[in-house]
């Protein structure tokens, strides 16, 4: 479902990603792990066509460079840093619903689902980090996109938010959606991931089934401050 071949990203002579190749099969949940600056977020941005890269990337057989709209139509994205402009929660979600061609009725359902019904008329930029992340999750849930990209999705969530998020992603897995998420949290990775893809300094250093090495640390040693 997600496939990269020799994906390389250079920004101003600096190599951010160096020949990364992997496959995530349909219905699989893969965790991108690695220290800060290892290229996890950059890899997700490449897959969304947000940065120009060398090599190939396909989502559901659609080339990210040649058919960016077709590839992105198959995905939902939860960014690390939510941004909504100046609108209320309801307006923001309605805007994305229009872009995605989703019925307006779904907006209030989703706001209720992520626990923001009481705040739907409030400006999204005044929300706390956790509330913004919930709204981002609502945007990602707007469509039944078969592929989900989640960039450190629980980083700014409280316990309630984390629980909501983990339950939602677990539901997606049951529905057979394909998930690629970056995370630093071992409990999250252990609960959600079928596959671990580890990056270090832009290179892929591990690509294995999560169950194949159950005792091994899923975060590379350098990420834990051990080298």
């Amino acid at each position, binding site marked *: 479902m997600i496939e990269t071949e020799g994906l390389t990203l250079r920004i101003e002579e600096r190599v951010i990603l160096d020949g990364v190749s992997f496959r995530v099969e349909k219905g699989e949940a893969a965790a991108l792990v690695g220290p800060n600056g290892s290229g996890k977020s950059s890899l997700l941005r490449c897959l969304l066509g947000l940065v120009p890269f060398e090599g190939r990337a396909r989502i559901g057989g659609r080339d990210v460079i040649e058919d960016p709209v077709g590839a992105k139509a198959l995905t939902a994205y939860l*960014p690390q840093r939510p941004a909504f402009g100046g609108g209320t929660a309801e307006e923001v979600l309605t805007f994305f619903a229009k*872009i995605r061609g989703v019925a307006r009725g779904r907006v209030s359902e989703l706001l209720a689902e992520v626990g923001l019904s009481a705040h739907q008329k409030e400006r999204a930029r005044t929300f706390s980090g956790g509330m913004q992340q919930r709204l981002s999750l609502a945007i990602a849930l707007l469509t039944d996109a078969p592929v989900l*990209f989640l960039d450190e999705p629980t980083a700014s969530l409280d316990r309630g938010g984390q629980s909501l998020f983990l339950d939602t992603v677990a539901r997606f897995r049951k529905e057979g959606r394909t998930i690629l998420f970056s995370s630093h949290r071992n409990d999250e990775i252990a609960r959600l991931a079928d596959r671990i893809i580890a990056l270090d300094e832009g290179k892929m250093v591990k690509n294995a089934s999560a169950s194949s090495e159950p005792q091994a640390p899923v975060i590379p040693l350098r990420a834990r401050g051990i080298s």
Partner: protein
Amino acid sequence: MLLAAREVREAVRSRWFVLVSAGFFLLSFALSSLGLSGAERSGLAGFDRTTASLLNLALLFVPLTTLLLGGLSVAGDLEDGWLEVLLAQPVRRSEVFAGKYAGLCAAMGAAVVLGFGGTGLIIGMTTGGNARVFLALVLLIVLLAATTLAVGVLLSVGFRSRARVVGAAFGAWLLFVYLCDLGTMGLVMARGLGPGQVFALAFLNPIEQARILGTLALSGGLDVLGPAGLFGLDLLGRTGLVAALAGGMLGTIALALSGGYLVFRKAIIS
């Protein structure tokens, strides 16, 4: 259309639209009132004199506003992370770029019409002046706003951060409003440029093009056109000169937006 409509909503919500409209109205009304009170004493034709003053006001303040607004457009969204969220949706970069410019242009056009048009309406009703001339002036200011807004968007894409783009926008404004004139005068003195060359140089500066166009629309007297304008008038005739100058401004819009899009389509969004 959806993206352009969102830009208009954001403009109204962020209050710049209200501030700019009110600013244009207050400045133009104050200037017109002063001009008219002087005209009553000296017996000059009040409405035409007022529109000429408004042209000079617009040539100063409209480019400053639009260069800054256009400059902050893409750079601001990039810094806030909005572009990342938006471009992760199934939309083309060309749609996002065109929607942003179209929305800003519509909001800025409305601000000009409200600000300068409001003044024109009041002065026209008071003095019974030539409404057609005033309408031409408002249309010219909208065209000037669209042109300098496109340049602002180009700067925004090129400089990518709010801090750098504000500096670049002020630099471009100084260049267009003051330095081009000084440079042309310097070249005339140092290199002995003829009127034809000065006329050609006017096509590098949209504000100079708007000044000549506005002067043609407002004044019957040829002495205020300047050497470049007079040369153009001799060469092309009145209709030809208007077409060439308006074409020059539209060409500047096309060039700035094409250049901006070429950078934007390959831009790193992070």
